[in-house]
């Protein structure tokens, strides 16, 4: 794959024939593509971890037990009320303040002092708070009749959630979650502030070598837009299949009486 990119880069360079900014675009293509890849990786990994954290938090949030909903409320409030940049710095720089953490050996050297994992941790915790709030709304929006039907069938509470409520809630959440993923894509640019070479980081790196500010910032902007468009498209497709019951009938059918 990477050899192919290098070949493509060389071919594009000869094609550009020294005309700027195309020649520089071609020369730094492998770096920029690595950045795109890292950005996507950050979103997907922290998105999945975030969803896994969001589910228990959303469930805690809708209970009436104050020992459960209050911590969930506090978590959501903290992560939605503070800037993502503060959260990233809290994880990446902040944790080093604790002597006991620095002496945990493997956990410290391989995970908590690595910018990659710090970014993943911060993004996951952040998106988990937003997703939990979406999920809570979706669970509460599941039509009452469906829950009553499940109850009258004698399904245990856990089964009600697993088979009826949660699948419905995931369908309801989907459009709003698509928005959240786009916000995560935009937020992922902050990974560059803790030395990661995501698309933003790679772009700044290239600019430091070429001094071509505008050209590469605009290229990055274009690539972010492209990624956003692809993600929006993917969510449209997912919605088409998951929310099949809500598909709008084709226009042809509208004429039939």
């Amino acid at each position, binding site marked *: 794959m990477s050899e192919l990119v290098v070949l493509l880069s060389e071919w594009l360079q000869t094609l550009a024939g020294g005309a700027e900014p195309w020649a520089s675009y071609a020369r730094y293509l492998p770096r920029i593509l690595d950045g795109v890849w890292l950005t996507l990786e950050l979103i997907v990994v922290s998105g999945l971890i975030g969803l896994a954290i969001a589910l228990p938090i959303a469930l805690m949030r809708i209970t009436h037990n104050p020992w459960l909903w209050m911590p969930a409320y506090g978590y959501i409030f903290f992560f939605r*009320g503070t800037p993502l940049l503060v959260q990233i710095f809290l994880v990446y720089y*902040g944790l080093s303040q604790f002597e006991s953490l620095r002496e945990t050996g493997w956990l410290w050297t391989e995970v908590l002092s690595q910018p990659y994992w710090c970014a993943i941790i911060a993004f996951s915790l952040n998106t988990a708070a937003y997703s939990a709030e979406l999920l809570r709304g979706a669970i509460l929006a599941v039509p009452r009749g469906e829950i009553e039907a499940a109850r009258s069938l004698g399904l245990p509470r856990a089964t009600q959630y697993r088979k009826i409520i949660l699948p419905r809630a995931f369908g309801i959440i989907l459009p709003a979650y698509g928005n959240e993923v786009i916000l995560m894509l935009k937020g992922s640019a902050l990974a560059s502030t803790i030395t990661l070479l995501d698309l933003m980081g790679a772009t700044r790196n290239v600019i430091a070598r070429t001094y071509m500010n505008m050209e590469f910032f605009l290229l*990055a902007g274009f690539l972010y837009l492209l990624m956003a468009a692809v993600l929006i498209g993917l969510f449209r497709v997912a919605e088409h299949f998951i929310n099949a019951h809500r598909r709008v009938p084709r226009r042809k059918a509208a004429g039939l009486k």
Partner: protein
Amino acid sequence: MDLQGFGHLLLSGTWVTLQLAFTSLFFGLMLGLAGAAAAISPIAPLRWLATTYNTLMRGIPELLLVLIIYFGATELIERITGSFVEINAFVAGVAALSIAFGAYATEVFRSALLEIPKGQREAAVALGLRRWDTFRRIVLPQLWRVALPGLGNLFLVLLKDTALVSVVGLDDLMRQAYVAAGFTKLPFTFYMAAAGIYLILTIISMQVIQRLERWANRGYQGARA
């Protein structure tokens, strides 16, 4: 929490953050209104412009926007005028944040404008009000009521996005926390303090927004049982 004598630095940073947030809010609202007017205007190129603005800003990270304006605009001015003009981080921050705010506010205002019954405007025309008076006296007061919840959310987002401007060296709350953390080697303490201040600002803003909403809805309260 012992702030090692850096408390006043955080407070001065908070003041800069607030100035940044409110200045951007003002210009953002202007841009949003202009964007919404363009989005519903009968002139097609204006509508395209509004759509393009909206789509672009939804997909581009705010951090990139801050950097484009801070570094890019300097370069652009240099290319045009031939002289190096350094753009102040505050100005760049206000420009970036209001452009981002304006894009989302365009949507909020657009849907709010569509909510106002057509009869209201027709009544104003029938009374012989001029276009500008119709907008100022009939449309705008009602626009507020519908747009406030959406704008409130956007302001909370804006407040948090101000932290991004610290990346280009503006001495806001985030940057002061960074400086203090570097000096004292107590990063967790200072970032937590900054987080606490952002939370307090968020809570205050939420209270104010709630009051504004109640005030804007004062004519409607009796109608709902």
